[in-house]
Structures are given as C-alpha cells and as structure tokens.
C-alpha cells in the first residue's frame, strides 16, 4: 500500500477531521462555558420554571440600568480614546526607535495588563488617597478611567507596535522620496497601513474596558457601577437574577458584535518577504512621541511605586511588618486562612489552569490554522475561531455565577471539586493562548512541511522538524500569559472560591473590605507579592521575543 507522507495537518482532511481535532476543546467549552452562561441567562428568563421574557425586557427599561449602560459606554469610550492617544506614540517609540532599555520598558508596560485587576484598584486608591490626594480624584469616575487606561495601555502598545515593527518601511521611503514630509508620510502611508491594527486594538481595549470588573469594583465602590459590576451586585447582593440575566445577555450581544468587527479588521497576513525595518536612533522630531512615552511610563510606574512604598510603611515608618503579617489571618478575623496559604493555593491553581489552557489552546490553534480546502470547512473554521474568543469578552461574573447554578447537581456536581476554579481560569486564559499560538502557526509556510515530506519525513517527523522549532517559544510565552492571567483572575474566582480556600486576589479584596490599618497594609503587601510574581513571569515572556497580543 502506498504510504502517504503528508504532515499531520495535510493527512487529516475535511470538516470531520477538523471537528475531531477540535472535539475536546469544543466539548470543554460547551460544558464549562456555554452551559453555565446559558444556565445563568436562562435562569433569568425562566425565574419560576416558565418563560418570562417581558420581565427581562422590563429590566432594560429601569432607570438604574440606563445609568449603568451610559456609564459603561462613556467610560469605555473615553478610556479607549485616551489609551490610543497614549499608546500609539509609545508603540512607535518602543518598536521603531532604538531607545535605551527598550526591552525592559516594553516588559514593564506589559505588567499592568496581567496585573490582577484588584491590585490595579488597590494601587490607584493608594495613589489617589496618598500622593495625589489633592486632586480629589478618589471615588470619582476619573479614578476608574485612570485604572482602565493603566490596565489597557499594553494592549495598544503591543498590538499596534507589532504591526508597526513588521511594517515595510519602503512605501514610506518612497513617499518621502516623492516629496512627502514625515507628517504627510504618516498621514497618507503609515496610518492607512496601521488602521487594521489600530481598529483591532481599539475594539479589544473597548471590550476589556466594558467588561472590566475588578478595577470598577475597587475604584467605583457602590457609587459607580458598570454593566459587569451591576451584574455582580444584582446577583450577590440583591438576588435579582432576572436583572442580571438581562444585562448578561445584552453584554453577550455587544461582545459578539465587537468580536465580529475585530475578526473583520484583523490584519491580513501576506507571505511576501518584507524588508525588515531597522530601528533607528531618535531624532529631534521624535521628541513629542518620546515625551508621551515617558508620560505613559510615569503613569504606569506611579501607582505601582505608591503601592510598593505603602506596603513598606506602617504608621509612617519603614517596616516589613505588612509582609510579615501575611502569614496571619489579619485583624478582626478578616480571613479564615493566612494570606500565604492563599498565595500557595493561587500558584497551584495557576499551574493547573495553565496546563489546561495550553492543552486546549494548542488543540484549538491547530484546528483553526489547518488549511481549509472547501468553503464549508473555512466557514466552520471561522466559527470555531470566534467561539474560542468568546471567553475574552463574556462577563467573568456571568461565567462564575453560571458555574454555581449549573454545575451543582449530578451528573456534574463540581461544587466541591478542586478543579472548578482552575477550569474557570483556564477558560478565561484560553483566548490569550490561542491568539499567541495562531500567528506562529500561520507563519509556518505550508511548503516547508511539503518540503520535509518530499525529503522523506513522515507526518510526525515533519511536525518535529518544521512546527516544533517554531512553536516552542510561543508555547512558552502563552504559558506565561495563561499563568499570569490565571494568577490575577478575580471575576469568576470571586464566585467560585470558598472562604477557606480563597486565591490571593480574592483575599486582597476581602482584606480591603475589612476595616483596620493592618488589613489594609496586608492587602498592599499581598498586592506587591502578586504584582512581583506576574512581573517576573512577564519579563520571562518578553525575553522569548514572541509578538504576543499582536493580533488579538
């Protein structure tokens, strides 16, 4: 019998095999994502076992809901605009110019993105009640806005920066040679080429802002609520499931719409060889961009520095007492277990979640990058691709609460399972893993595999020779992202983690909620520990030089 030496991707043909490859992730997503979200939303539509659509629609007419919607839209829009204004010059400086400490600065700007949202909240509260108290920003929407920009600047810098870096410099040079001044070159050549990346980054930032939970909850308190925190308040405090379901559904629709826009504008990859742009030394004309970058850096560093200084002070004196207190349960019995136990647990859960997310992500990435031979297959692939992006934007609160209401009875009674939290976190991290692996896989020219096959390499051998050398870095990088994301996950975990086995972000939030200087100091110290851990992970990721987040 003739043995066909075709690589893995080429041997498995047709939609059937596409589904076979995607079967495990699809099943996991169905059980642990679609089921909980549908269960949660369904509970709102059928409060007493019969349909009540009118009740849900009534929710949307409530003035409070209008307030919440308006607040979400305007803060997200404003935060997106500010993030773009600050992020674009920084993307240019950090990806097209040779500035000292370029890599370190890039990694530093990435830290906020994976920083636990609770930590971001704590840092800004510390900043606005401490050094910048004179601005009277604490407890206003401006604080929330600042937190959102802080959190998302990295997305713009990375996504647009990666596009800028791979941008062929020659059309710009051609325009300059035709008499275009640098400003005109930017307006007529560079900007049109970057538009997909900018629109893509902008829509992702808007998505993150609109579904941000930890930042709004810690900085907005009870005065200001976004859709996400309102869902949380409705479900936990007011037990108004109908209202929560209506908001969840609305959010889901907006997220899907935004993801569709994102997929439309995702930059098309061409396989043509491009002249690599060598970063050049800054000139005088780059001063404004450099100034904005320094501003952004200060904006990112200031809250973190305040946080660090705050954690090192007790009653105005330098002390490590806050850190030493981490092995206690805080004052007024704020915690059931010491914070160190929570850290330990966080790390263990993060490892589990990372392994899960990597396995699922790799399967998803392999299936959505397979060469589609028919239109039906291509469409199926597109649907799968979009499906696995959903957890990115769906309210983590909805997911967490959905877990509680649907996975609590046989055959799936996971209420007390130690896997509940890792699974939820893996789902939240999944889009990051997929978005890091997919470009790397797409970057492999299929002809390389064909060449390997023609030289006598069997399918697995071809994967080993062609795919593995390209893939191991992105794989490690996505492991870092997943680990950091899981370590900082707060929305879903805050529902699922019990008091006796809370993760560190949950512990921080709990400490903040309890009165007492010691509890507050412990929250600061724990935030620093968490921030330092994620920062180290991110530095390692940055060293791998993977254009991660480039095509979110």
């Amino acid at each position, binding site marked *: 019998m003739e043995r066909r030496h075709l690589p893995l991707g080429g041997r498995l043909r047709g939609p059937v095999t596409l589904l076979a490859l995607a079967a495990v992730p699809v099943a996991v997503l169905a059980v642990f994502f679609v089921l909980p979200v549908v269960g949660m939303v369904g509970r709102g539509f059928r409060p007493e076992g019969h349909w009540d659509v009118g009740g849900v629609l009534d929710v949307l007419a409530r003035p409070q809901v209008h307030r919440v919607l308006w607040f979400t839209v305007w803060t997200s829009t404003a935060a997106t605009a500010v993030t773009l204004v600050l992020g674009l010059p920084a993307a240019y400086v950090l990806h097209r110019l040779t500035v000292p400490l370029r890599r370190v600065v890039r990694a530093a700007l990435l830290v906020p993105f994976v920083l636990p949202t609770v930590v971001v909240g704590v840092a800004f509260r510390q900043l606005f009640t401490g050094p910048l108290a004179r601005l009277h920003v604490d407890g206003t929407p401006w604080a929330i806005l600042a937190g959102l920009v802080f959190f998302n600047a990295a997305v713009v810098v990375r996504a647009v920066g990666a596009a800028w870096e791979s941008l*062929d410099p*020659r059309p710009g040079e051609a325009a300059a*040679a*035709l*008499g*275009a001044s640098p400003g*005109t070159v930017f307006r007529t050549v560079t900007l049109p080429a970057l538009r997909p990346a900018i629109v893509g980054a902008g829509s992702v930032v808007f998505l993150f802002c609109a579904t941000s939970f930890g930042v709004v909850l810690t900085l907005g308190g009870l005065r200001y609520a976004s859709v996400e925190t309102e869902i949380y308040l409705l479900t936990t405090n007011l037990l108004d499931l109908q209202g929560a379901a209506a908001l969840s559904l609305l959010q889901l629709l907006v997220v899907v719409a935004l993801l569709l826009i994102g997929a439309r504008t995702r930059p098309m990859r061409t396989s043509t060889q491009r002249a690599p742009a060598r970063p050049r030394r800054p000139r005088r004309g780059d001063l404004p961009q450099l100034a904005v970058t320094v501003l952004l850096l200060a904006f990112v560093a200031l809250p973190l520095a305040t946080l660090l200084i705050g954690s090192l002070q007790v009653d105005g004196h330098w002390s490590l007492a806050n850190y030493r207190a981490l092995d206690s349960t805080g004052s007024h019995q704020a915690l059931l277990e010491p914070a160190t136990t929570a850290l330990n647990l966080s790390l263990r859960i993060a490892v589990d979640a990372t392994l899960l997310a990597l396995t699922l992500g790799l399967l998803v990435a392999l299936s959505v990058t397979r060469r589609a031979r028919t239109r039906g297959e291509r469409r199926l692939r597109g649907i799968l691709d979009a499906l696995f992006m959903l957890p990115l934007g769906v309210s983590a609160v909805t997911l967490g609460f959905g877990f509680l209401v649907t996975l609590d009875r046989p055959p799936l009674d996971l209420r007390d399972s130690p896997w509940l939290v890792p699974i939820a976190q893996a789902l939240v991290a999944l889009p990051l893993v997929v978005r890091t692996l997919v470009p790397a896989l797409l970057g492999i020219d299929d002809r390389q595999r064909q060449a390997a096959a023609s030289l006598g390499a069997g399918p697995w051998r071809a994967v080993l020779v062609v795919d593995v050398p390209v893939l191991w870095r992105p794989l490690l990088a996505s492991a870092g992202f997943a680990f950091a994301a899981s370590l900082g996950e707060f929305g879903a975990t805050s529902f699922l983690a019990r008091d006796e086995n809370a993760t560190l972000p949950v512990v921080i939030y709990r400490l903040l909620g309890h009165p007492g200087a010691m509890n507050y100091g412990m929250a600061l110290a724990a935030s620093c520990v968490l921030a330092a851990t994620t920062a180290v992970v991110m530095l390692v990721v940055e060293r791998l030089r993977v254009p991660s987040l480039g095509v979110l």
Partner: protein
Amino acid sequence: MLSLREVSVRYDGSPALTDVSLDLPDGQVLAVLGPSGSGKSTLLRAVAGLEQSTGTIAWDDRDLTGVPTHKRGFALMFQDGQLFGHLTVAANVGYPLRLRHVPRPRRRERVAELLALVGLAGYERRLPGTLSGGERQRVALARALAVEPRLLLLDEPLSALDAGLRGRLAADLRAILVAAGTTALLVTHDQEEAYAVADRLAVVRAGRLVQEGPVAQVWQRPADPETALFLGYARVLEGAPAAAVLAAAGVGHAGPATVAVRRSALVLAEDGPLSGVVAQARATPDQVRLVVDVDGVGEMDAVAGSAAHPGPGEKVRLRADQDRLSILS
C-alpha cells in the same frame, strides 16, 4: 549635476560603502553595477538621504548633508515599485502632485499624460493589486516622473520581472528617460539592464567604486580581472596563453599582458592561427558554443556558425577577434 566626494556608510560599525567619489552630469543615466551585497543599493539610499553617510553629497555644488529625503527633489523608484496598495493607479501617480498642491484638473491631466508616457493610458481606476509586475513598475515609474525630479533614483527597477519582459521594459525605460530628459541613477546587478538603459557605468565591489566612465569605455577597458569577469568576459588570461591569444588576434603588446576574453572572441575558422581539440559542443539557435582545448593556451570558449557541427574530439582551427578581447595590463 550630482557629485559625490568620499561618501562612506557604515552599518553598525561595519563599512557598507567606502570613499565613493563620482560625478553625474545633467541629462545622463548612470548605472551603478555590482554583485548583490556590494553596497550599490546603499549608495542609492545615501544619495536619497535614507542613510546616514559621511563625506559630501552635493547637487550643483550645494551640499545636501542634513537635507531630509523629501526636500532633496530626487525621486526614488524601488525594485518592487512600492505602490500604495490602498490607492488607485491615478491616486498613486497623482500622490506627489497632491503633495505639491497641484489643482485637481491639472493633476488629472498630468496623470493621464504620464500614464500615456509609460504605455498605460486608461489605467487610472485600477488598484495596484490587479496589475501585473511589469505594469506595476510602469506605474511606479510614472509616479516617480510626476515629481519632475532633478534626479531619478532607480533601485533594480527591472529585476523583479521575468527575462522577456525585462528586455522590452529596459528599452522602454531608456526611451522614457531620454524623452523626459531625466538625469537618473540606476542600481542593478544585471549588466544587460545597465547597457540597455545607461550612458555611464560605475562598478562597485565590496563597498568600493572600482571603475566609472562611459558605458563603452568601461566595457572595453575593465579595470581589473574581477571587473572583467563581472562585466561578462568569460576568462582572464595571463602569461604565455595571453601572449598566444594576442598574437593570434594580431595585437602587438610589449611585455607580459593580462587579457580578458569574451566567449565569442575565438571563432572557428579553417585558416585560423590557433589549433585545438573540441571538448564540448552545444548548439544554440544563433551559433554553436564550443569549449576547445587550445594548443598553448588551454581550455577556452569559442563559437562557430550554426552551419558547422564540430563534435567532441575533433581537431579545429580558430581565429581571435581583437574587438572581443581586452588588454587589462
């Protein structure tokens, strides 16, 4: 007039171009010829102001140091055209005119003129993605000419095209440049392209200018053996073989000589002064190409009319054509 004095460019400390000096009179086309990696594109980019260089680059005795690319009044045409993919052909060609605030009706008129000049009349509404490689290069040329540049810089303008098209377009390019009276600096690794388009030739090797002058002069008197081989001479002979070939061609030369010989310098002739044994023979449409082991010279290339069919092992006589060899020293 463009003049370069001791122009050098370094990339990360390693020299890409060293002490290049040359002059290009108005209205002439200079081809900078060199193998890939010789620094010829760097030279072009330095003239365009896209590379930091030392030394002096001047136009009509005005030093251009510190003058940014867009203020030099030079147009640059890239190897693959670098058309703006999001603009139509008309918008691409009209781009430099729009920068110069040329009013719209005049602009439209000028774009039509330029497209007609490059043989693409009526292509205004097309997008670059729908054009063939040759058409894209023509549009790029039209766009570069729209600037009415005092100097047109062409970076391997025809290399990306296939051989047949390259030949046709090279002749067109020459005609267009002459018609527009443009001073041009052309960079290429292909001597045929250089001969077809240029008035003057500059040979660059390993970042240094080896030879510069009118095309015919450079072609007839290569500066050294390497240049001769690069310019398409088949072999370079020294000592006794060189003397034998010179004697056969009837050229007198005192002392030891170095001779560059073209493939067609030795021609099969019954009464020729050289004799040898055919080692290989290959028929081409125009002539038969031979490799002959010539007595007292060694293995040489030779040609015969397509009527003759000498086979390997056959003894033949050859004459040497003095127009097809060059005495290097």
